[in-house]
């Protein structure tokens, strides 16, 4: 049963991720007094891309064709070790949270390499910016992870969530810092406003879009899907690490249903928060981003230090 869940959860990630993107867009449109597209629009986009012809640039090497598969696989693997509806995930033992950060890095590396493969100006631009941003976001992410792992005494995500769940509602200063840092990192890593604008194709500002500019058809669909899963993954991490309540702890049908409902509601709420921030904020200049990210890094280090100073003691 546990292994069935281990296979089922990533599939659930694959299925729900476009819906989440649709929901964020829906809320954002409503907040901006616009008419919203259907919640199912991302699925339609994917289907449309799926049947379209794929155009490979003349200068593309095998890296370009392999990248969508590798990016998708790496993100899927990351999804496979994050508990979604139920803790007690056996796959979390295979790869712990550091490895998850490694999977993100692997996906990013191939995304960037694919961007540089064609030899257009945009590819290099997006690649350079993505690596700059990630080289500051990833340490912050690792420090958040470090804080959590030190509190829970484990780097196994499933066990760490179990620990937070078991210890009940305790206000830990380190978790507050870590949560804030992780939210900032999530915004940067998933390319949302104010770091990057997923809706823009304005040449000089785009980052993620610049790297995948040459993709079309099915390859593009796979890339887009991977980035939707990544967005959802960060949402689930925030929701289940810091607010794991009502996640299923056994595999009875009621518990699973409760877990599913809980995570859907949590993600919906987080999306509203994201839509609000995206509506209120404008995109930053690229050289302001480092302030944003060093703030995230600072928060994460503060979180870790406050854990060490305030929460660890020897009797």
């Amino acid at each position: 049963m546990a292994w069935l869940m281990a296979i089922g959860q990533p599939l659930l990630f694959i299925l729900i991720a476009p819906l989440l993107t649709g929901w964020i867009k829906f809320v954002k449109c409503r907040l901006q007094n616009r008419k919203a597209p259907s919640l199912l629009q991302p699925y339609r986009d994917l289907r449309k891309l799926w049947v379209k012809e794929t155009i490979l640039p003349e200068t593309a090497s095998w890296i370009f064709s392999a990248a969508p598969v590798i990016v998708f696989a790496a993100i899927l693997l990351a999804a496979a070790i994050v508990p979604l509806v139920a803790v007690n995930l056996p796959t979390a033992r295979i790869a712990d949270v550091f490895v998850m950060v490694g999977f993100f890095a692997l996906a990013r590396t191939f995304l960037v390499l694919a961007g540089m493969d064609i030899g257009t100006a945009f590819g290099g631009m997006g690649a350079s910016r993505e690596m700059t941003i990630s080289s500051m976001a990833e340490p912050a992410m690792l420090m958040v992870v470090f804080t959590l792992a030190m509190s829970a005494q484990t780097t196994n995500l499933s066990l760490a969530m179990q620990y937070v769940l078991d210890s009940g509602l305790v206000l830990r200063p380190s978790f507050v810092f870590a949560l804030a840092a992780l939210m900032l990192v999530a915004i940067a890593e998933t390319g949302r406003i104010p770091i990057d604008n997923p809706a823009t194709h304005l040449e000089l500002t785009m980052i993620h879009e610049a790297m995948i500019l040459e993709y079309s058809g099915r390859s593009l669909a796979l890339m887009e899907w991977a980035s939707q899963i990544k967005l959802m993954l960060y949402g689930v991490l925030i929701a289940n690490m810091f607010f794991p309540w009502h996640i299923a702890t056994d595999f009875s049908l009621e518990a699973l249903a409760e877990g599913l409902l809980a995570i859907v509601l949590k993600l919906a709420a987080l999306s509203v928060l994201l839509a609000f921030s995206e509506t209120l904020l404008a995109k930053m200049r690229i050289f302001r981003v480092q302030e944003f990210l060093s703030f995230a890094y600072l928060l994460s280090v503060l979180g870790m230090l406050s854990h060490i100073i305030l929460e660890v003691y020897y009797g």
Partner: protein
Amino acid sequence: MPMTLFFALLSVLMALLSAVSSWAYSRRALVEYLLNRIFAFDSSRLVKVALFLEPDYYARAMRIVPFCLLGVSGALAVLTGLLQLLGADSAAMILPFGLPGLSWHVRLDALSGFFFLVLGMPLIAVSLFGPGYVREFEHKKSLAVLGFFTGLFVAGMEMVLLADDTFFFMIAWELMSVASYFLVAFQHEQPESRRASFLYLLMAEIGALCIILGFGVLVTFAEGFSFGHIRGVALTPLWASVAFALGLAGFGMKAGLMPLHAWLPEAHPAAPSHISALMSGVMLKIAVYGFIRYSFDLLPQVYWQWGVIVMALGAVSAVLGILYALQQQQLKRLLAYSSVENIGIIFLSIGLALVFFSTGQSQSGALALLAALLHSFNHAQFKTLLFLGAGAILHQTHETSLEKMGGLIRRMPKTAALFLAGTLSIASLPPLNGFVSEWLTFQAALQANQLQSGVLRSFVPTAAAMLALTGALSAACFVKVYGIAFLGLPRSPHIAHARELTDRGMLAGLALPAALCIVVGIFPVPLIDGLRRVIENLTGAVLANITAAGWLWLTPAGAETASYSPGLVLAAFLAAGALGYVLLYRIRAVESRRAEPWDCGYGGLNAGMQYTSGAFSMPIRRIFDPVYDLRETLNQETGDSAGWRVTAIRYQFQADDKFVRFLYTPIGRSVTQSAYRLGRIQTGSIRTYLAYSFATLLFLLWVVS
């Protein structure tokens, strides 16, 4: 004599033989004479000998033979290492060389055995790569000189690993340093090479002096020169710290620890590429070996303050090393700075181990030490691969500057694929080997909870934060290297016409470390089992848990705390990849076609539109501006007199080491100035010198009486 020690000594002998055989390269007449003397009366053999002595044939044989011997030496070193890791006993003996009463002591234990393994693998790769690579020097330079000093260099490194007394250790150490000086100076017609080799020699000797002084402190309190005597020495904390500081300076200088690293980015690129691979891949590890031997084996006790200092130096080296690497435009120089970074990571782990051991947390200390040793092994593999890859590019295109490269993946597909393995490993991405050692370092740092002192408890994670930053920056750096050199469009004509390596040996030399990067990344457990033995042998700490869950699993502190199974990760990755592949190309696949990429409608994509290496790292240059000694020039040409229409822009930058400007240059200047001042007493007149002698005599008489 035990078998392992026999293999080790044979390995040294082979390296020396390699040196001798290279020396014979330019002395065909002498060889002919000797062979004729030996075979004079056997006419059937004479034919073969005569064939061998044909000038063309001889030259080819003599290009290959020294490398074959080096390869045998490497294979024997690997064998020695494997036998030691599999649990052979340590062995010692006294060689009948050296001063009377001070014979050379040699000893082989698990630690030196492991470093034999670290040395052997790159050595085999280099000996495969070498014969093809040195062909370009054949008519320009003396291969005899190159091969002779390569053999001595390798023999010196192996002797350092075997040395068991201070005297022999220093002889071997100096042999290694001096032989590698000649290798750095090999291309001495270039002024940079001369400058680099002088700086290298200078710093190597200062470092050796520090080590001698450190040994001096130990030997003074011990009863003899051999390591066996030193091990039991009793030192006051003050003297122990003095000895430690001297050792740190000496070994740190050889390892390229900041701020003692200035020689490294000069010397490594100046040497021929296969030598750079040996220097970066192996020689720095010999310094790491020396430091571990010195601080964990010879010094009687460790103190946490030392650990903090080593960690801080390691963290600084790691972060600054990779930041400087990011701004280099010469590929080999970039790789050299990245070696500084990796040495920083290794020293950070060693510092962590010192902190844990000195506070009695021997389990965590052993874990940190294991991470350091494993990273040494991994760095030896991928740095060898990358330097040899840079050598392959240099060999095929005569280009070292990243700014001129591009699109090599289409011209040199095999090299590109092998180089990619190195890139992904050094960027510490799962499931390759660099990730395993980074993961273990993080796991070791997580054990900081066990430390009693709050200051230490917060210091360790701060160092881990630096490590995280380093990891992310090194990913950025090597993605840049690969993206600029191998992807995109070629930035110069000779790159556009580059050809793939045709020499099978050179390709094999790249393939061997690449394969090791992958295999060790996926199945690290056997190696880690061996390392457990090394650490148990060295410190007495038993790491029971780490491989307790079987050959697929790493569980550094128990399965509940953390576990990683690279083998299963790979299996899952392949499964997910297969799913992606089937989705993309198999199920009712739609035809794909090739078309021109989007060029903004300017009509024709050209290489000049691409991001350059300097442009790629520009945001990081701006963000981390204070750490660079940055010089930029921007020249604009305008087409009209008013200056409105810009027709050409030329931007140049140089991001130099701040240490050079603020530490080395002032020291150099003050040394020169004081030399001038001292020089004034040299008047050249005999009367003055007689006066000096007279004064000295008076002074001595006064002292004696």
